[in-house]
């Protein structure tokens, strides 16, 4: 179990996250939602150890993560960064192999078992046929699968994703999220994902954490957290919520557009 306990993060003197606490069980997908600049990415970065924690604690199965080196931490949690244009003239296989960094020896030599892990990660992300292609030549959706495969090859119990579907079209969004969801269940992964698209969240996540101005304003199932008033207040935009006719999941759409066009 990943336990986040009263986490506070500050840049210079500005508090970006305040007293955030929640936990995530193996096999569970938690979505971080909230308006822009509310601390979702900061939370992901603080969990992965690239932003210092001002107070509070992050632990997995009782082990305090701040006591670990970058190498040890990278064996516990892997990060899929925000989608962006990837440069660097590496092949897909080379890029995914970089996820094996915490397991390689000091000259970065890979073993047969590293190669096997990479092959599996490529398979799980439907990239096997792309192994020798240059990442710079792939489409945005394919590149994002490469970053997912790289994170998977770190063989960690925790997977953090920072707005992984930004800039992706509907097909690639669905594709990426369904891979994550399947692996989370199969491999009992602890998954935390920062996301903007609330409708994708309600289909995809088991649990939602609503962050507003660095504070936790809601925690629970999508149905529980994504209520009309809470979402309207958080995003300062009146929304309507209806239920999906088949699954019952909340579907959210802003009223503003209707009103302003009238």
């Amino acid at each position, binding site marked *: 179990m990943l336990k986040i306990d009263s986490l506070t993060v500050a840049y210079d003197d500005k508090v970006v996250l305040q007293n955030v606490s929640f936990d995530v069980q193996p096999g569970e997908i938690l979505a971080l939602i909230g308006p822009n600049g509310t601390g979702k990415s900061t939370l992901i*970065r603080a969990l*992965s*150890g*690239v932003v210092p924690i001002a107070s509070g604690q992050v632990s997995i199965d009782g082990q305090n993560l701040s006591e670990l*080196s*970058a*190498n040890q*931490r*990278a*064996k516990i*949690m*892997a*990060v899929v*960064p925000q989608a962006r244009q990837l*440069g*660097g*003239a*590496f*092949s897909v296989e*080379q890029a995914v192999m*970089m*996820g094996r*960094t*915490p397991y*390689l020896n*000091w*000259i*970065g030599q890979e073993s047969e078992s590293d190669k096997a892990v990479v092959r599996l990660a490529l398979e799980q992300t439907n990239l096997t046929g792309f192994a020798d292609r240059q990442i710079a030549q792939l489409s945005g959706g394919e590149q994002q699968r490469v970053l997912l495969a*790289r994170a998977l090859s*770190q063989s960690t119990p925790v997977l953090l994703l920072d707005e992984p579907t930004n800039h992706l079209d509907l097909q690639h969004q669905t594709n990426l999220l369904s891979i994550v969801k399947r692996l989370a269940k199969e491999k009992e992964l602890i998954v935390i994902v920062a996301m903007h698209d609330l409708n994708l969240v309600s289909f995809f996540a088991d649990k939602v954490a609503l962050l507003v101005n660095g504070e936790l304003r809601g925690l629970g199932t999508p149905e529980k957290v994504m209520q009309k008033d809470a979402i309207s207040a958080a995003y300062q935009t009146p929304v309507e919520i209806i239920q999906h006719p088949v699954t019952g999941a909340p579907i959210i759409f802003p009223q503003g557009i209707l009103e302003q066009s009238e």
Partner: protein
Amino acid sequence: MIRQRPFLVNIIILLIAFTFSIALGAVFIHPSTILRILADQIPGINITPDWPNSFSAIILAVRLPRTVLVLLTGAALASSGAAYQGLFRNPLADPYLIGVASGAGLGAIFAMSLRWPMNLFGFYFIPVGAFIGAILTVVLVYSLARVNGLVPLTTLILAGVAVGAFASALTSFLMLRSDLQLHRAISFLLGGSPMTGWDPVIAALPYMVIGMGLLSVSGHALNILQFGEEEAKQMGLNVGRAKIFIIIVASLTTAVAVAFSGVIGFIGLIVPHTIRIIWGADYRRLISLSILGGGSALLFADMLARILIAPSSLPVGIVTALAGAPFFLWILRQAKREVFW
């Protein structure tokens, strides 16, 4: 074949460059004669000389040490250039363009002006001066050029030019104030006069072997750093330690090259780039290939420098600049399109 066998191809090119570098000069010595003269040196092998006595003296005392020193210099500049490019994530980071070579030159001239004895013992200390100069320069340029955790092309080159110019000015001042032979010092700065004889080779060799050896094993860290420092850390790299390690080792390697061969530009730019285009950007391979390719490239440049205005010779730094500056502009245009970066 060329793409599949990078090491074989580069070793063959290096052997050709090496042989011709020894063969060329005021008298041309046939490669087969060179081979026999060299073989004759190996204990247990005795070849009846069918060559003039002067040939073995020319080769063993003059051309061979010069060739080895030029080879080592080219290898050092190209491999440290590749490392700086990876570290700064910037295709234009060349020891010369980012001012490190000028800083090393300043350190070397400073060390020489302290009147160290010009014997083997004294030679071991010139690189120390050059190393201190190089490290100070790279740290200064890096901190000046860094914007929000990135080192953009423009600020890197501007900081490199400014700091390099400052170091060169200090160097000129030192040269005018001290009783160094001015001509020798100037052609040193132009990358013109690799020192002669075996002493500089023997003095450079241990530093070079250590420096290039350590650069060769930094390839994996450089690969990871291409995704940015934050992601590198998330993948388990100790980013701070890796960066300091690479800066120190690359600066040491550059410094030794400058200490014995002067300030030679563009080799650290042309060679890694050409290799990247042909054999890809995997730094684990790029560094080792740059060692081989850098040796060949500077040997060829040195041959041109000796041939172009024979019987006199040009500083090799002029040849590399003549070839390198247009290449630099070409990469600048490429970099805009971010083909390789």
